[in-house]
């Protein structure tokens, strides 16, 4: 389908980040550096058991440490916040533990002191007495265990679709999402072949290099919060709810984030910082160490059982998916991951008969939530690993198998939504061309063997969500954008400036982007799920168009034919007789959406756009050790028009490299008691400069998002989708060993090779 693409003036051509000089000189603003007069420092005391009843907390020795201002427990929090439970989907997480603890590392008390040293010293002296209870750690076990993490479910009252869960007891299942299309039973009966596999993923952490930090200063009737947050608007709403105040009594300010990746969403440290400021009547800084971040939010471990019915020609006739998401002790946004990503579990394939069951379960592990990809990397890992298994077993080229089944525009997705602006076949084809998929390659012999693999994943942009923006034109003609999109490295400030430039004709480099301050900047749902380019992009476009309309009216008013973007200031002088006045344009964007049917999950309009990413790899395995080297990694995505191609390139390769870390190196290791063995970077290794593939290529296909701002859509996560399964496929291609459980470690490959040898002997 060819769509007319209006010509672009500023967008589509690369622009360096507006804040580049501040970042290379070390002067960019991060909340990390915020310090207020009279500020106290907090240190959190954490649970040492995974599940237990709080008997007592002895704070006597801690209070005696010089410089300590106060030592507070859940009982103290109740004095200032009577209902101290928070969370975006369920109000299940107490600010400090009350009655029970549900994971190792859960906050049970907090010391507030004049210095971080005094706070830390005192925190070590708080005696916490806990009656230990049996714990449940594994998601499959938790489905049927008689150990219950919560006494009853507490869904947030704001979501109509969760209301029926309120008060349910004796379960660890927070939410089950169902999708049903066609007749799976009949299709499986008539299948030529049936494939059933189970794939598992492990728990990992986002590891932003700016550790989470919030500074609260609560006065008599107004709370000021400086916080490293991806969701200033949600933080305001949630803090106001906890305090029983109005939104305009809460101010949330953010700065650049030193990485977010989904861990700085909703509220994390904000409620505690607010409560401690109220209890101590001083500004309080709550800042985590790198190690503490691992006890705060993580990515879901999953168990995904996928069963596919295939005909003689390699067409997938039917697919059953059961995905169990290990949400840890508190729901956070897990139930939304379960639903909003769960419905893509059948993959980017045209399958007539589909059943999906996607289950969010509680366990006694640290909470899991959003993590770059919002559940998609876990799903793609499974369905693309199975694609490869099916193709191999049936003797079909893995690329051809995918192309034969790929969802093209005009076909119905498993949800019933007709695919639009989703370049799935194009991404596969371009990836194969770029990689040289059909060209022969050196497979090696003897000790070192080479293999290749590829894969593709899709994500539905989370919906329905709203973004609001304002564009102001000052009396000298200079322009500013007010919006609550948080620039955490993805280059959103620069993109929003480029959009203003596109509409108003002013140079993008001269547009100022005001950082979120909820007293001044309007509502935005969140900076998450690669939604900002699409949603906030539209809102800023509309705001700039509104400003332009007002400028044009002003020009007409003073007898001018049109607006000269090179000399907007003259317009103000003519209108107001001096350099005076302001023009403010506003824009609100909310895409169309139809809620999925409660029983079948079907919807005509499940998402405003699909994001697509494919990866191909060539690797070499040392057959004596299982050690492997990624010789080449190619990534191709559909992001519609690449609105700022320079940032798009870096986002694709950065996403792939981060994902590669979680696939090859990273794993939170728990013992049977639920103790995390490797919090912190000394034993949890993230990729360094020596860990990246020898060659990395990135490309965007020539595509246009019809309903996107200037043809664009998000790209922050697409590079993550195909990485894990492509690597597993390449390993099987090289040495015949199939890894079904992440991470892909050399010892697993070695064990697989040894098992094969024993079998053959």
């Amino acid at each position, binding site marked *: 389908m060819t769509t007319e693409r209006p010509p672009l003036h500023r967008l589509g051509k690369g622009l*360096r*980040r507006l*804040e*580049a*000089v*501040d*970042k*290379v*000189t*070390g*002067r*960019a603003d*991060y909340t*990390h*550096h915020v*310090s207020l007069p009279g500020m106290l420092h907090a240190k959190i005391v954490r649970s040492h058991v995974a599940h237990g009843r709080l008997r007592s907390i002895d704070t006597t020795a801690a209070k005696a440490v010089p410089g300590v201002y106060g030592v507070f427990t859940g009982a103290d929090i109740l004095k200032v916040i009577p209902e101290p439970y928070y969370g975006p989907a369920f109000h299940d997480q107490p600010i400090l533990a009350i009655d029970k603890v549900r994971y190792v590392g859960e906050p049970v008390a907090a010391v507030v002191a004049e*210095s971080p*040293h005094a706070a830390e010293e005192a925190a070590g002296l708080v005696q916490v007495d806990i009656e230990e209870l049996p714990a449940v750690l594994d998601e499959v076990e938790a489905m049927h265990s008689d150990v219950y993490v919560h006494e009853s479910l507490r869904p947030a009252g704001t979501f109509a679709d969760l209301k029926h869960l309120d008060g349910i007891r004796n379960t660890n299942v927070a939410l089950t999402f169902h999708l049903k299309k066609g007749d799976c039973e009949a299709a499986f009966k008539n299948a030529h072949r049936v494939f059933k596999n189970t794939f598992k993923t492990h728990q990992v952490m*986002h*590891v*932003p*290099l*700016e*550790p989470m930090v919030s500074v609260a200063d609560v006065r008599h009737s107004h709370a000021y919060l400086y916080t490293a947050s991806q969701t200033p608007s949600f933080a305001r709403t949630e803090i106001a709810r906890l305090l029983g105040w109005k939104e305009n009594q809460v101010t949330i300010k953010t700065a*650049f*984030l*030193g*990485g*977010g*990746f989904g861990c700085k969403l909703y509220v994390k440290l904000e409620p505690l910082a607010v409560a401690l400021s109220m209890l101590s009547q001083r500004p309080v800084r709550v800042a985590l*160490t*790198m*190690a503490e971040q691992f006890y705060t939010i993580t990515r879901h471990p999953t168990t995904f059982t996928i069963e596919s019915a295939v005909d003689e020609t390699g067409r997938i006739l039917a697919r059953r998916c059961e995905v169990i998401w290990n949400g840890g002790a508190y729901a956070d946004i897990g139930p939304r991951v379960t639903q909003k990503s769960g419905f893509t579990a059948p993959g980017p394939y045209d399958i007539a008969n589909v059943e999906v069951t996607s289950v969010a379960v509680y366990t006694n592990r640290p909470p899991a939530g959003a993590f770059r990809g919002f559940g998609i990397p876990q799903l793609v890992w499974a369905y693309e690993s199975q694609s490869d298994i099916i193709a191999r077993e049936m003797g079909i080229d893995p690329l051809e198998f995918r192309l034969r089944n790929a969802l093209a525009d005009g076909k119905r997705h498993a949800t019933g939504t007709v695919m639009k602006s989703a370049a799935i076949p194009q991404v596969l084809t371009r990836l194969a061309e770029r990689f040289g998929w059909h060209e022969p390659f050196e497979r090696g012999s003897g000790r070192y063997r080479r293999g290749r693999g590829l894969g593709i994943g899709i994500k539905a942009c989370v919906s329905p969500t709203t973004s609001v923006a304002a564009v102001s034109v000052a009396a000298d003609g200079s322009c500013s954008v007010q919006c609550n999109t948080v620039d*955490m*490295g*993805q*280059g959103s400030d620069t993109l929003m400036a480029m959009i203003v430039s596109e509409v108003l004709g002013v140079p993008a480099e001269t547009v100022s982007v005001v950082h979120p301050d909820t007293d001044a900047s309007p509502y935005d749902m969140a900076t998450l799920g690669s939604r900002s380019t699409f949603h906030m992009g539209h809102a800023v476009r509309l705001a700039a168009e509104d400003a332009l309309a007002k400028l044009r009216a002003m020009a007409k008013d003073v007898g001018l034919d049109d607006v000269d973007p090179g000399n907007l200031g003259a317009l103000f002088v003519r209108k107001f007789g001096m350099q005076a006045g302001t023009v403010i344009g506003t824009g609100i964007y909310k895409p169309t959406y139809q809620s999925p049917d409660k029983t079948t999950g079907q919807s005509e309009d499940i998402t405003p756009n699909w994001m697509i990413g494919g990866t191909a790899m060539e690797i070499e395995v040392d057959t004596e050790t299982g050690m492997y080297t990624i010789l080449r990694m190619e990534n191709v995505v559909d992001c519609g028009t690449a609105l700022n191609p*320079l*940032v798009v*390139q*870096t*986002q694709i*390769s*950065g*996403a*792939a*490299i*981060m994902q590669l*870390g979680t696939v090859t190196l990273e794993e939170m290791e728990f013992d049977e008691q639920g103790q995390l063995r490797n919090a*912190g*970077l*000394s034993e949890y290794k*993230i*990729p*360094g*400069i*020596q860990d*990246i593939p020898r060659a*990395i290529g990135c490309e965007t296909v020539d595509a246009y998002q019809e309903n996107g701002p200037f043809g664009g859509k998000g790209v922050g996560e697409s590079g993550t989708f195909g990485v894990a399964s492509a690597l597993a496929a390449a390993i099987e291609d090289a040495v015949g060993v199939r890894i079904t459980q992440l991470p892909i470690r050399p010892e697993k490959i070695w064990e697989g090779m040894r098992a094969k040898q024993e079998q053959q002997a």
Partner: protein
Amino acid sequence: MNIDIEFELNGRPERRHVDVRDNAIDVLGRCGLKAARESCGQGLCGCCTLYVDGAPVSGCLYPAWKLQDKRVETLEALNEANSELDPVQQAFIECGAFQCGFCTPGFVMMTRKLLEAHPRPTDAQIEHYLAGNLCRCGTYPEIIAAVRLAAERIAARN
């Protein structure tokens, strides 16, 4: 326990009253400097890189009291004398060698040391010098390109 220390900071004498538990980053923060910043707290990520008597150290592991009589340099020293960017900084911008920017000062500091010692660095030398700096945004390919560009520029200038 608190003690008084005197040291040279970016070419100027500095006198500070420090807690013996303070590390170098705690003190630099109180001096109003932000470029060297603590992240992992274990000397593994390189975000807190500064020079002490000309040698790069992890500020998070460097006790403040040990700064006594030392010559300390942070990234800020580079841009104090003139407003022009160092060739390494310029190359990082041109190659898009950062996203969130939190690790960038550390990378710039180590790259400068690399290029001082090895004006035409090999891949192995680049990896060796920058192995102690982590970038969670994964901009390593761009960082390697920036190091090479800066090396070329410096060589052309000399």
